[in-house]
């Protein structure tokens, strides 16, 4: 039973039905145009998009279960950066990509890529420390907005790792292949772990 059937089922049970305006409003909500006020025109070259896809796949590779590329994570990352992040993150993300471009990431073999990303991750630990210090130094809301616009964003690695994981572990295939997906638990129980217990996802 999909969600639509499920709701309709419950609604019918209690004597209701979806109204046309409701469906329309819902569609409008889902289809809303992206903001007209993008801080900058954030865009990536085809080569950079390939790097995004390969880095995402390195974080969540295809194994017995689908990988990041299988579930559309690369396009998700670009969309999220456009829709949910501002200039500082656009800048730091682009900086990280340009670095990988210069290092010929796409021409590397799997081991070389892996070694480079281990280094990128190690560097980002230091970058995160600097980022957090800068966050705590920010003052009131008004200042915060202004300073945030000029400040450096979250480091590239942190952004791509977070968005890869979010995109993958909330995708339908990602959830259903990684976890025990229980949309309607129906009960609450304190239990003991089974051997090789998977996380429940709801």
């Amino acid at each position, binding site marked *: 039973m999909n969600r639509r059937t499920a709701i309709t089922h419950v*609604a019918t049970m209690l004597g209701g039905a979806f*109204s046309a305006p409701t469906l329309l409003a819902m569609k409008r*909500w*889902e289809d809303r145009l992206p903001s007209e006020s993008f*801080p900058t025109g954030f865009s990536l070259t085809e080569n950079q998009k390939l790097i995004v896809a390969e880095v995402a796949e390195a974080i*969540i590779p295809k194994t017995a279960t689908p990988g990041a590329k299988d579930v559309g994570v690369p396009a998700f990352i670009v969309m999220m950066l456009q829709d949910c992040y501002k200039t500082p993150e656009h800048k730091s993300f682009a900086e990280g990509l340009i670095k990988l471009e210069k290092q010929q990431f796409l021409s590397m073999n799997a081991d070389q890529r892996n070694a480079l990303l281990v280094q990128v991750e190690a560097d980002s630990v230091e970058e995160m420390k600097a980022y957090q210090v800068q966050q705590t130094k920010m003052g009131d809301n008004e200042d915060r907005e202004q300073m945030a616009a000029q400040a450096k964003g979250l480091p590239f690695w942190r952004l791509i790792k977070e968005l890869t994981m979010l995109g993958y572990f*909330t995708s339908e295939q990602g959830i259903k292949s990684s976890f025990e997906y229980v949309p309607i638990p129906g009960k*609450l129980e304190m239990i003991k772990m089974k051997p090789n217990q998977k996380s429940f996802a*709801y």
Partner: protein
Amino acid sequence: MNLNLKSDKTHTFDAIVVGSGMTGGMAAKELTERGLQVLMIERGREVKHIEDYDTAMKGPWEFEHRGRVSIHSAEEYWANNRFGTLANEETGPFFTDDKKNPYIEKRPFDWIRAYHTGGKSMHWGRQSYRMNKKDFEANAKEGIAIDWPIRYEDLEPWYTHVEKFVGISGQAEGWEVLPDGHYLPAMPMSAPERYFRETMMKKLNRPVTIGRVANLTKPQPWHTDLGRASCQYRSKCARGCPYGAYYSSLSGSIPAARKTNKLTVLHDTIASEIIYDEKTQRAKGVRVINQNTMAVEEFFAKIVFLNAGSMNSAALLLNSKSNRFPTGLGNDSDQVGRNIMDHHLGVGANATVEGFENDYIFGQRPNALYIPRFRNWGADKKDFLRGYGYQGGASKSDWKRGITMNGFGASFKEDMSHPGTWTMGFGGFGEILPDPSNRMFLDKDKKDKWGIPMIVFDAAFGENELAMRKDMMASAVEMLEVAGFKNVTGFNRQDTHPGLGIHDMGTARMGKDPKNSALNKFNQVHACKNVFVTDGAAMVSSSCVNPSITYMAMTARAADYAVKELKRQNL
């Protein structure tokens, strides 16, 4: 302006209730059940129970931004966005577009609104605690503001009345600080939570209980009669519950009122003014504007209940000017709009829990632990007044732990599909003292698109709140350390303002003396007895417990009194 003023039968009712949220719903239920024909006026769009819960059954992948807030939404919902992720696609439909409904901040105020059927009852936290005896006495004992005109005993039977109707899951504990109510079976605690409860009692003598929450664990016949069913432990309440398992006006009070066939509801209808009759010295009705067509109409009734939400109820009084009330209906005392209170939050601590590796939870509990106030209680004395309660609990970490961990690749991916270690954390809800300089008022010039003066906020935390916040963080850290948990980290958000607790209250306080209060002990406007204000505006002090159940109890009590007074022909 399209004026359509009728006084025919279709525009005349026994009672008008302004607002369909937590208290408006309760007022409508109590008044219709006592035989009154009631008109409920809701300023926002209509939301139909179940059929309009558009996001309720969606999978995580069906939300484009997967729970994150887009810049576009963050701009539209700029005030909501100060809270966290309220403006995301999951819960956004039940919050209000701040860009279309702007307000003015002389000092910052985080005003979270819900303009639609059910108001904030659609997405409330559902925590339901009675205020204790001392909460009602504290102002008088400490010489703060004014005394409450009622005591715990006045509200006690009404707490019982609304608790049974609402359906609250919880554990009776027999603690004076947190009076017991009538509870459905309590939700279980996890293994580390049970350990925490025992350790806190043993080592610090601080009680910990499971949250008292308005979710049905065992529906009673009067719940199922309204089509309400058991909680399914999805913990997606804020999307609207297709099972009616958590209480809202939509799942509870409005269906109950409709059963009487005495309820009429108008949506998209903004109450702009209460119409005062200089001759009878009573309100005779309410002037309204349709938010879409801009049509103006008047509706008439013997009594008017204001349940528009504390800030909007006060604004409606202030905007209702007459010869008798040149500064707003019931504002002889100049207290309407003043004494804004809330609960300050965003302070607490987190930790990781070692052990309990084999324990896990099936289902999502829409509830947490509650640690009642221990500050300035009994022998405890601090350099600030009043206290705070904590809410929080333990959870087993999921894939999100990987974001801040080092690692990637096949084994990392596999690891993320299994639960990690337990973490535990909680945050405080602190009492805010009433202060007349913390206020809202109507702008002299600026008006909204319906021609109603815009609301200006001018409020801030005081010294007492700031001192309390330091202690709130320190005590949270202390408790987690005493429990032996690791990586204990305190937090104290500096970017919060009054309003963020979404418990804004106090703007038309009750009192014994008309000179320093707006309402009497039955929530009647002192000098206009057929107007009742029974939302948070009536509060004289804020306690530190979540207020909705108190507002509902006050509302039921006032409705009972109003009908008796009508029968005695006093109104």
